[in-house]
């Protein structure tokens, strides 16, 4: 795993570096002292994993993630009290409290390894889906009030346009992100995501049932989700794609 350490304190960075020495499969490809440096390093080095301090001068860890289109696997590090730690737990984000215990670090790295492998498996299935030279999105960071999520694209059943925003539907919630549906579409893996109509994109893996309506239009029922009407033009494409 290629990892980036983001922390404003030199001692905190070197401490983590020392702890990571015990993990040979983790290669530290860089360090950043603040959000700006981190942003640059992430874009340039494209790490698999980032260790991210929440409290930093300038933009904090969350604000950094909001700047990223595609979010690497993230392990937050924080000296926060238990209250803040609970907020992380509720949002199912992985975090380590400082001082970091080697056992907790082990557990987090195991989890990170697993998500990395499943992401790799996803993109193998996806095949050659690259567009505009970008790799398809793996996960996105979303913040809605006090809640934060790092959502794997595979977990999103549907995306819905709301003006300049897009609402993401997944099991834990349906927050808005400040990006247009069209902008997101360009970075999506086309073998998984399908434009259903002008305002909705669906995840094909989440389709439970397909019904045929008049004039050959299709209506799709998503698992644990609503029925989505497919526009006439797109119905044709969907039939081809699913070879119905």
């Amino acid at each position, binding site marked *: 795993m290629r990892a980036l350490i983001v922390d*404003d304190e030199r001692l905190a960075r*070197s401490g983590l570096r020392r702890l990571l020495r015990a993990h040979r499969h983790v290669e530290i490809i860089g360090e950043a002292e603040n959000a700006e440096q981190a942003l640059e390093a992430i874009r340039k080095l494209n790490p698999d994993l980032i260790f991210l301090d929440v409290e930093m001068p300038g933009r904090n860890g969350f604000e950094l993630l909001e700047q990223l289109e595609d979010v690497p696997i993230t392990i937050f590090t924080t000296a926060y009290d238990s209250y803040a730690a609970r907020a992380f737990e509720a949002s199912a984000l992985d975090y380590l409290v400082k001082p970091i215990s080697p056992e907790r670090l082990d557990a987090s790295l195991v989890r990170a390894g697993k998500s990395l492998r499943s992401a790799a498996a996803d993109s193998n299935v996806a095949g050659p889906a690259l567009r505009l030279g970008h790799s398809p999105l793996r996960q996105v960071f979303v913040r809605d009030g006090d809640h934060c999520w790092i959502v794997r694209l595979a977990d999103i059943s549907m995306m819905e346009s709301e003006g300049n925003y897009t609402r993401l539907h997944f099991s834990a919630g349906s927050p808005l992100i400040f990006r247009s549906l069209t902008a997101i579409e360009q970075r999506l893996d086309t073998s998984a995501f399908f434009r259903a109509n002008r305002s909705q994109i669906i995840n094909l893996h989440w389709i439970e049932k397909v019904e045929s309506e008049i004039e050959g239009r299709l209506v799709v029922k998503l698992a644990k989700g609503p029925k989505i009407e497919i526009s006439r033009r797109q119905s044709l494409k969907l039939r081809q794609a699913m070879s119905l």
Partner: protein
Amino acid sequence: MAHISPNAPLVTKHLFAPNARSYYIGQAVGWATYAALLYALSPEHGTATTIATAIWCVAGMIATHALRVYVDRHPWHAISELALTFVIAVAVIPAVMTLVQVVLLTILRSHHVSAAGIAAHFLQGILVIALWCAIYLGAQELRRRRAAEIEALRLALIAQTAQFQALRAQLQPHFLFNYLNSLRELMNEDHERAERALLELSGLLRYTLRADQLETVTLKDELGAVESYLSLEKIRFEKRLRLRYDVDPSSLTAKIPPMLLQTLAENGLKHGIAKLPAGGDISISAVLKNGILRIRVANSGSLRCANVSNAVGLKNARERLRLVYGDRASLDLRASGENEVLAEVTIPRSDGEGS
């Protein structure tokens, strides 16, 4: 009753309920005493007098109890309404008592009741019922005042608890975990420095815990704690934190509330330096002039972004100053330059402090 809001009933069940027992005891003892007095003072002592006295007093007791029940059940919104009820009661109850006695005595034929006797009974009844009303309302008012007092105490307690909790949250060494994290790495890097830092940390913790129990400390003690605190932060922030002290030696014996300077330094760091990627300066100065201690904590940063989260710590510091010095001390926070925030405290040097 003037301070009761117009919508609150003047007499409420709530006020009666816990005191029902004392009412019954008062009612029984009062009427029994009255009956005993009446009997003792009457010219003849015999069955007829006993019956007459008993009828009179029992009638009075029942009638006043009826009055109490009526007053109790009725929500009173105006003092005039309640007063009118009692005035009417003072006229009606004696009339009822007199009527009951005349009728019963006539039926029992034990007494001959003259017109003068009826008038005398009625007048006596008025006196007794007026006295009853006075005692009743007096007791009622006493109870109400006590309830108000208890309520005021309760509110004060709530306020104090909240203040205490706010203070504790403020004084909590939330910097602790960051230090421990830095210290752990420092142990590998520079053993001696880590050891010194650990001692600083112990001293600071001891001071913080003890500070809760003291009203004032000397500036020297507080400054020692603040220097420890900032030296620990220096380990974390390294070159990003630059410190300057300018303390007039004569001011060191002056007394200040504990954690005051600490709060200001912490604020300056948390809302100033920690927000600046390039870091900045914190300078602390103290002078004693004309019996007034003036402490200044200046930090790089801007007031704008500090304002909101700053409020709690500063509010507590101000409150502590007010508790100890009243209006004679002040705490002022302002932007003192393009990129500097200044917190300034003035404290009168209290009398009797050694110079």
